[in-house]
């Protein structure tokens, strides 16, 4: 029998570390070769780590949410025959040697605190003089973090000690609420059903202060029978993609002074063209053509507009104070996936025709949704489109895909009455809500850019004229 150590492999170009987002195994599991052990996430892509050997898991080197350096050991397996480690070297030495991420990630600390809190609460329970044969239904006591249970227990302990065995205990169903006649009268006059009032006094006695608290919380609760107050708090650790999104959004909003510009576009002509093109069943080279949505037209229009204003197709390295103005137009397409927002990138839109853009958008959207998009496909954009489709609303305030300098938001298309000089006529209208990095893009330039796109989309033939 030997031990086999699996180190975090290099998952992508230039990536030095990755976040562990999921364990597929636990200690004691028997795994076969190629079985998935874990998933790690880099800046964009999630990568699964397979087992190169058969064996039994004896050690896991990271917790979910930990950032792990490439090359750090993450799993130890007990394998038949010789392993890849010299016997005797303990996992801990190995860990230290392999420098598991020196960055102090918050999770191990949090775990420690929780463990301590659990200790405290366990102690306070053990130290309390009488057994408390109750909890179960008061949600606050059941909050997922034992910390709260502990704190609460500690808070009530002095009064509970020695005297009040069920202080603050919830009232079992059907039991009469305990309150003095004066409190009962007050409740009656206020229209409060005392059965719904938690009692803070000894043995759950309801006092005047409980009535006040109940009233302050809103008497409508008392009247709406069947509605129950809930006090639970679920603590959800932000890991993986969600954490990336959170960091990226915070970065974008804290660094970039956004200017958002909303303009109305008459897409009646564009929609006619789109319908015509979709009807026309020209066989593509080999495969059936993708159905055209509005996106490819917008992408092509952006390519045209960027030709006039190349400074919008850029990445702003604000720390170095350099704007990298790209010649190639790589359009990020914000896409919603079950795990959260990702932005697959249509590379070199300037070199793609309408159909090509459409096909690439479809392909990337599918890849993003199924989680198979590669790191390369999820990075390298120079400008981004965000569209909520039918949910698009009237206007949005898009957040720039940092470190880009512009994002174009597509709102919902709807038929609106438009005054043509003599009468109202129904037109298919759609808003574009676009944000720009005001540090490097002036409002004027932003307006010119959007007006140019508007002109192109309203007279779609212009998109195809060079």
């Amino acid at each position, binding site marked *: 029998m030997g031990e086999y150590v699996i180190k975090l492999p290099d998952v992508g170009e230039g990536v030095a570390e990755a976040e562990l987002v999921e364990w597929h195994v636990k200690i004691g599991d028997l795994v076969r070769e190629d079985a998935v052990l874990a998933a790690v996430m880099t800046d964009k892509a999630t990568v699964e780590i397979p087992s190169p050997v058969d064996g039994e898991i004896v050690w896991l080197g990271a917790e979910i949410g930990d950032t792990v350096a490439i090359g750090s050991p993450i799993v130890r397996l007990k394998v038949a025959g010789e392993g890849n480690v010299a016997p005797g070297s303990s996992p801990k030495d190995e860990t230290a040697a392999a420098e598991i991420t020196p960055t102090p990630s918050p999770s191990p600390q949090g775990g420690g605190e929780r463990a301590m809190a659990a200790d405290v609460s366990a102690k306070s329970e053990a130290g309390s003089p009488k057994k408390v044969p109750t909890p179960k239904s008061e949600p606050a006591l059941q909050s997922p973090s034992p910390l709260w249970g502990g704190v609460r227990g500690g808070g009530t302990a002095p009064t509970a000690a020695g005297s009040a065995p069920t202080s603050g205990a919830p009232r079992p169903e059907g039991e009469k609420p305990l*309150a*003095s006649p004066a409190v009962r009268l007050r409740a*009656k006059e206020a229209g409060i059903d005392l059965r719904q009032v938690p009692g803070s006094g*000894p*043995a759950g006695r309801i006092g005047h202060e409980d009535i006040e608290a109940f009233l302050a919380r809103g008497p409508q609760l008392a009247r709406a029978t069947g509605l129950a107050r809930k006090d639970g708090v679920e603590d959800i650790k932000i890991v993986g993609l969600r954490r990336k999104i959170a960091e990226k959004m915070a970065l974008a909003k804290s660094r970039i002074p956004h200017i958002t510009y909303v303009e109305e576009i008459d897409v009646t002509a564009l929609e006619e063209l789109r319908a015509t093109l979709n009807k026309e069943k020209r066989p593509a080279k080999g495969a059936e053509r993708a159905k055209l949505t509005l996106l490819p037209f917008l992408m092509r229009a952006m390519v045209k507009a960027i030709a006039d204003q190349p400074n919008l197709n850029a990445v702003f390295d604000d720390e170095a104070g350099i704007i990298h103005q790209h010649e190639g137009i790589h359009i990020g397409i914000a896409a919603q996936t079950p795990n959260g927002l990702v932005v697959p990138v249509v590379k070199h839109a300037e070199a793609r025709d309408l159909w090509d853009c459409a096909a690439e958008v479809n392909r990337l959207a599918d890849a993003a949704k199924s989680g198979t998009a590669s790191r390369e496909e999820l990075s390298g954009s120079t400008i981004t489109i965000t569209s909520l489709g039918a949910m698009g609303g009237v206007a949005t305030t898009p957040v720039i895909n940092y470190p880009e300098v512009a994002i174009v938001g597509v709102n919902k298309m709807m038929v609106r009455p438009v005054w043509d000089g003599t009468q109202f006529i129904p037109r298919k209208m759609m808003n574009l809500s676009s944000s720009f990095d005001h540090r490097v893009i002036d409002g004027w330039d932003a307006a010119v850019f959007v007006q140019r796109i508007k002109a192109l989309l309203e007279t779609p033939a212009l998109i195809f004229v060079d």
Partner: protein
Amino acid sequence: MKEISCKLLVIGAGPGGYVCAIRAGQLGVDTVIVEVGKPGGTCLNVGCIPSKALIHAAEEFDKVAHMAGGKSPLGISVATPALELAKTVAWKDGIVSRLNSGVAGLLKKAGVKTVHGWATFRDGKTVEVETETGSQVIRAETVVIATGSAPVELPFLPFAGPVISSTEALALSEVPKRLAVVGGGYIGLELGMAFAKMGVKVTVVEALPRVLAQYDAELTRPVLKRLGELGVEVITGAKAKGLSTRGDALLIETADGKNAKVAADRILVTVGRKPLTEGWGLEQIDLDMAGKFIRIDDQCRTSMRGIHAIGDVTGEPMLAHRAMAQGEMVAEIVAGHKRSWDKRAIPAICFTDPELVTAGLSPEEAKALGGEIKIGQFPFAANGRAMTKQGEDGFVRIVARADNHLVLGIQAVGQGVSELSAAFGLALEMGARLEDIAGTIHAHPTQGEGFQEAALKALGHALHI
């Protein structure tokens, strides 16, 4: 006679009815109360008050009688006392009469109109009252039925001649030599003991295996002991069969099925009370009943809109203070306040010697709830004040939940413990735990210390036992 219209009409001026009317009057409700007799009902005229007067007189007589002959341990000696019952009754009537006018005055002060006469429902909003001066029709938005109750009459022992109810027993002009009491409930024993103290040879005939059957045996033991000391003969498991042909004895069938005679000058029948639901037109309004009582909800509403019922006519416990609380509540409901019956305890007292008090649940009732309970009991034999009053028999007992020490019930038996009912009722109504009672300073030397000690006992650290 001109019709009277009012917002509230109360039928019956017993403790339920008159309290209801006074409170309604205080709240500015236009109220009329109808009563055929004197205000105060059974309680004031032929119940609680006069019986307590008689019991007190008997007690005093008994005390003095024991001092006669120089046998008193207190060192007091007196000449042989004599009792002139007619004077006692006159004194008692004086008290009743003062209270009658007191109630009448309170009703007047509250702006309540009193109509003297017998009321009969015509429909749910209209009542016809037979007054001395003719028929008076009263229309009311809300009617409160507070007609009370009356002693149950046995068909084979109708109230006549030597067979009397508690009402007549309170108005005897001379002390009978021998008294047979049919029914060993609290009324029979209260009066039976009083007469025994006046020197009457009393025999109590009870159909059940024991007297005061609504109390547990432990609680009634001191009373049974005292009955023996007073020379009261208690025949249990025996059925009254009727009056002897000469009218000087009660015929009974004993527990073993034999016929026997209990010689008696008077036969007091106290086999319970029945709600007064006849003779005032209940059939006209056809209310839902709960057995022989009028069915009410937690706001004392009957099945007919605008008609409330309170007091003995609505069920057990048939106690004046329950009726008063109901009357007060109904008056406030009629005045537009939000009220409903939410009392936790209706203390009950039996004025035997020694007295019995119960409030809340008995140990048996508490056990029946299924939870674990704690019981603390403190005997007056260990109470200084009880010793100095020559009242060492009896105890205070507290029943509480074992888990949170919430007091569920309190019982006491002993001399003068009726006054402890105030503390018992307050403790239950306030939701006291054993620690609340144990942690309250009770003045020394009083019998009330027994209450605190019983709580300490339940907590496992009684100090004086």
